[in-house]
Each structure stands twice: as C-alpha cells, then as structure tokens.
C-alpha cells in the first residue's frame, strides 16, 4: 500500500515534469531570458515532490531503525536503484564527461576504475555486511573489538569521508546554478544545504532512499535521452562520432589511446587501488546494505546497482565524446566566443552545453534540474551517514554506552544533520573553484585507507585485535590525509609551493598498504587477554556472517 502511494508520487512527478518540459517549448523567446524558467520550474517540481515524500516518510519514521535503515524494508531492486543513485553523483555526470571531453580515452580508464569496485563488493562483502551490520559500518568494525575505541575511530573515519564527499557535491551545486540560473554560487550552496537538512532531519532513510530512487531514474532517463538525441546527430554511427571528434580535438588521433593520465604505473596503480577499495569503504554506500531485509536482497541490490552504474558510465563516455564535436567547435559555448578557450561555466560543463546544443533550453533545463536533484540526493545520503555516525556510534554507543533512549538518539541525529548541513555549506563556499573529480578521488583515498582495512579485516581475519585496528586506522588516516596535502594538487596548486613532496595525487598505494601492515603487525604482537577473547569471538561472528543467524531482521510495520 505504502509502496503504491510512493510509486504514485514518483509517477506524478515524472508526468508533471514532462508536462513542464513540453509546455514552455511552445512559448517563443524563452531562450532570450537570462533566467532559465523551465529549469527552475522543473527543479521546483522535484523539490515539491520530494518534500511531499519527506512528509510521508516523516510519518513513518518513529524509531531509530526507521530513521537509519527505513526499518530494513527496502527491496533489492529499490535498493539497487538507490545505491546507483548514491553512487552516480553530479561529479560522475559532469566530471567523467568533462574528462572524456578534454582527455579522450583517459576518461574511460577513470570510469572503469570507478566501476570495478562493485563486483568485488558483491563477491567479498555484501552478504557479510548485511548479516553483521545493523545501522552503521562501525557496527561491523567494532563487532568483537573494543566498543569505545574502535567505534569512535570508525565513526571519525566515516565523518572524514562524508566531509570530503560533501565538499565535492557542494562545489558541483554551486557551479551548476551559476551557469543555469545566473545566481550566486553561495546561494546555491545554501539551498542545497538547507534542503538536505530538511530531507534527512524529518524523513530519515525512507525519504533519502526515495529521493535516491527518483533521482536515479531521472538521471538514467535524462542521460539516455541525451545520448539518443546526440547519436541521431551522428547518424547513429560511432565511426562518425569518433571521426568528427578526432577532427575537432586538438589532441587528434591521441584522443583514442591512453594518454598522460596513466603514464606513470605507480600513480595508475595507486589511483585504481584507491577507487576500487575506496568504493568498499564509503559509509553512505555501506549503510545502504542495512536497509534490505536479508542477504539475498543485499546481493540482488548490488546486481541491479552494478548494472545501472555500468550503463550510466557507458552513456557518459558517449556524451563526453560527442561533446568534443558538438560543444568543442561551437563558439557560443566559449567565453568571448573563442573556440578552444575557456568554457562558459567552467571545465565541468561540457555535458550541460551538449544538452543545450542538441535539446535546446528546455532539455538543458531538464538536465540541470536532474543534476541539481542528483546533488541533493547524494548529499542527503552523506548527511544521513554522517549523522548516524554521530548519533548512533558516538552518542548512543560510546558516550551513553547504549543507555540512550530512542527519542534521545533521534534528537541527537537531527541536531547532527543540521550541524552537518551547516558544515557542508561552509565547506562548499571554502572550496569554490576546485576540480570536482579530483576531490572525489581524495574521499576515496581516505575511504580505502581508513574504513576499508578495518572493515575487511574484521570480517575476514580472526587475528584482528583492537590494538591493531586502532593503530592501523590511525596510520591510514594520517598517511592518506598527509600524503594528499603533500601531493601535487594540494601542495603545489592550492598551497602555492614549488614542488610536491609526495609525487602522486592518489595516496592509496602507500597509505592503504601502511594501514594493513600496521594493523597486522600490532595485532599479531598483541598478546593481551583482550586480544585472545577477541579472536575467540570470531567463530560466532563467522557463523553469523555466513548464515545470517542472529542478523538484524526487517523491522515490522
């Protein structure tokens, strides 16, 4: 029943947005307006519909289980869409297309790196995550280790990744709105931050999940429509598409082969490790595994999510390659009309210009509204993950030692969501004009070196002890953040020093190895009674991880 109501809301949202899409098309002169009314109208429809869902979800959100995991009642297919919605951020749409636009084939390598973590998450982690976790990934990390120290540390790891990722989304939001509505960057950041607080604070995981699902459908639908419109212009021929791209791009034939991005094998390896295992350490993604009723549905969600994500990545590759010809040779998209100069709106905008070129202002408006909705959905997932780290892990478990009432915990969660919203707004403003995709890589570096090692070892290695996990995590955190600060992008480009102290932008190869090594060393040398007890507890944990016996079940409504 509830599901059908939501489907109805989602359906009417689609219907309304298509009506809006069609209506202004008949009105001449929309193009000349400095403000894109169709974009604003479509975005408003999304906002109103999602606020409606939030209101409905708020009525359903009575317990902490409702708040953190939507009561565990999401199906595998729904969760797959929502995971895809969480993962396909505005940075993916804008960043990957822009990478293909500027660097050609290198953009595809990047996309493969972003994708490849998914099958591995399914094979090695999905069922264990579902069977062991309850609300947060710290539940698993601290399953048989010291509740205070490991939980605190895992929560801090989550919050660090959440903050990095939030910056990315906020910067994307600001850039988009600047281009579309002619509004101040800072206003956009504030709008996103405030809406995010409303979704998460009132609607919890239920609202966040449905925002993700709707957004994933809109993004996939929008991307595929744009691809079809674009391919029609090339006579449905890839041959034609690439021939023209080679003619139009200053790289010429080099567009079609691997270039400078991966020229250094250590840098390439570090990037791929960071993206592969970083995906498996993203707290907002891990959290999605607790929203389904059992391991069966958890596996199915990864299957659907992987399919949608892969499809979307392939679509973005085509869009990027098409933009080379359609956007790259049109003076209307360059500042001062100078082809090859600076793109209007910045380097992340090729796909938006492409939408305008092949679909007109209305389609640009639609895609912009979708991209904006995308940012909203992703930040909501992040804020929820961050808020649960604060309220469930730090407040309820560590500070209150499990004695907090459900009402108290919910209250803290809501304060935490508001706090994260304000933090996100401030960080978004502080990080204006940074490359979006690079910041994603930064978040992945930390996720792979802090969250992933403790998570995977706690599930797979009997010998893991509190001491090892704690010091390994600290080593991973200090080295990944430290190395990113010393990397060319931060040390040279942002801080203005002459030469980078650490030569690679992606720290994973060093920081992840270090985290694993320190964890191992300090675990095997740990001869304390606690360590022996922790190893003993592994057997029961193993049975639960494998069979689901005793796993947190779906919450009955």
């Amino acid at each position, binding site marked *: 029943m509830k599901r059908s109501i939501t489907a109805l809301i989602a359906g009417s949202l689609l219907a309304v947005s298509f009506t809006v899409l069609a209506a202004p098309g008949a009105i001449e002169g929309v193009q000349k307006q400095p403000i894109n009314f169709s974009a604003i109208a479509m975005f408003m429809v999304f906002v109103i519909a999602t606020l409606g869902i939030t209101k409905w979800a708020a009525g359903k959100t009575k317990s902490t289980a409702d708040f953190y995991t939507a009561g565990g009642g999401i199906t595998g297919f729904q969760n797959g869409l929502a995971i895809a919605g969480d993962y396909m951020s505005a940075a993916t749409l804008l960043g990957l297309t822009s990478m293909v636009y500027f660097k050609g084939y290198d953009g595809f*390598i990047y996309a*493969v790196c972003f994708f490849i973590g*998914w099958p591995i998450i399914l094979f090695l982690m999905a069922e264990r995550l579902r069977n062991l976790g309850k609300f947060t990934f710290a539940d698993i990390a601290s399953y048989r280790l010291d509740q205070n120290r490991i939980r605190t540390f895992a929560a801090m790891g989550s919050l660090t990744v959440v903050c990095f990722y939030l910056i990315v989304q906020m910067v994307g939001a600001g850039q988009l709105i600047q281009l579309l509505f002619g509004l101040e960057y800072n206003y956009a950041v504030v709008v996103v931050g405030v809406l995010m607080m409303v979704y998460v604070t009132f609607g919890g995981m239920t609202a966040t999940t449905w925002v993700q699902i709707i957004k994933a459908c809109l993004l996939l639908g929008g991307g595929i429509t744009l691809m079809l419109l674009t391919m029609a212009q090339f006579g449905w021929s890839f041959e034609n598409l690439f*021939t023209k791209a080679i003619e139009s791009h200053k790289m010429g034939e080099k567009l079609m082969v691997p*270039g400078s991005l*991966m020229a250094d094998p250590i840098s390439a390896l570090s990037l791929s490790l960071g993206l592969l295992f970083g995906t498996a350490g993203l707290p907002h993604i891990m959290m999605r595994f607790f929203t389904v009723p059992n391991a069966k549905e958890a596996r199915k969600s990864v299957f659907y999510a992987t399919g949608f994500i892969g499809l979307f990545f392939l679509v973005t590759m085509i869009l990027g390659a098409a933009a080379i010809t359609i956007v790259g040779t049109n003076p209307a998209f360059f500042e001062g009309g100078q082809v090859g100069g600076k793109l209007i709106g910045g380097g992340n905008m090729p796909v938006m210009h492409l939408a305008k070129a092949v679909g007109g202002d209305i389609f640009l408006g639609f895609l912009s509204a979708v991209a904006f909705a995308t940012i909203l959905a992703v930040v909501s997932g992040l804020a929820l993950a961050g808020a649960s780290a604060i309220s469930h892990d730090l407040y309820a478990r560590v500070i209150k030692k499990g004695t907090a009432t459900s009402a108290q915990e919910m209250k803290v969660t809501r304060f935490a969501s508001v706090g994260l919203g304000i933090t996100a707004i401030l960080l978004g403003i502080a990080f204006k004009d940074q490359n979006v995709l690079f910041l994603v890589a930064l978040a992945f570096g930390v996720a792979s070196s802090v969250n992933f090692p403790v998570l995977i070892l706690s599930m797979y290695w009997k010998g893991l002890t509190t001491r090892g996990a704690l010091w390994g995590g600290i080593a991973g955190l200090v080295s990944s953040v430290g190395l990113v600060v010393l990397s060319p992008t931060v040390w040279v480009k942002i801080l203005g020093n002459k030469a980078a102290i650490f030569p690679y932008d992606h720290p994973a190869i060093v920081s992840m190895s270090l985290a694993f090594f320190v964890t191992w060393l300090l675990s095997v040398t740990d001869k304390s009674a606690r360590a022996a007890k922790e190893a003993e507890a592994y057997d029961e944990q193993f049975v639960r991880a494998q069979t689901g016996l005793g796993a947190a079940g779906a919450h009955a409504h």
Partner: protein
Amino acid sequence: MSQSNIYAKIRSNPKFAEMVGKRTRFAILLSLIVLVPYYTYMLLVSLQPQLFAAKISEGSVITIGWPIAALIVFGGWLLTGVYVSRANGEFDSLNEEVLKEARK
C-alpha cells in the same frame, strides 16, 4: 537451547563447511576473473599504451581500447549476475538446511 550451542552445532555441521567452502571459493574465483584482467588492463594502459592504438577494423578510427574498456564494465556486471543466481539459489538452500538442522 542457548545461542552459543546453536553456533557450535552449525560449526560442526559438515554442510556448513561445504556451503562456506563452496561459496568462498566461488567468490574468490569470480573476484580473480574481475581483478586479473582489470589490473592487467591498468598495467598495459600505463606501460604499453600503444597496444590499445590498434583499430577495431581496417579503415576504422575506433581503437580497440574502447571496446576493451566497455567489455570490462559489461563483463563485471554479468559476473555479478552469475554470483547472485548461484548464491541466492544453491548456496542459500544449503544455508537453510544448515539453519534448520541446527534448530532441531
């Protein structure tokens, strides 16, 4: 019967060992099928980029790099389907038997 007795019973059930062993081996096998080509690809992209410059056919401008990358993505997804069908079918039936026998 206490919880830990059930756990002990499950651990001593040969079917549990069979299920865990089969599923673990299958997961590792599939992971290798994904990771070995992926890291081979990454290393070749980095060290031997010219290998990817060959054209997909005579007179085409498209290099083999594009379909290879697309294949890694598509193949990765197909393998998730393979895993889910076997894990949700064969392995889960075994798992249910194990749980049923433990509760007896």
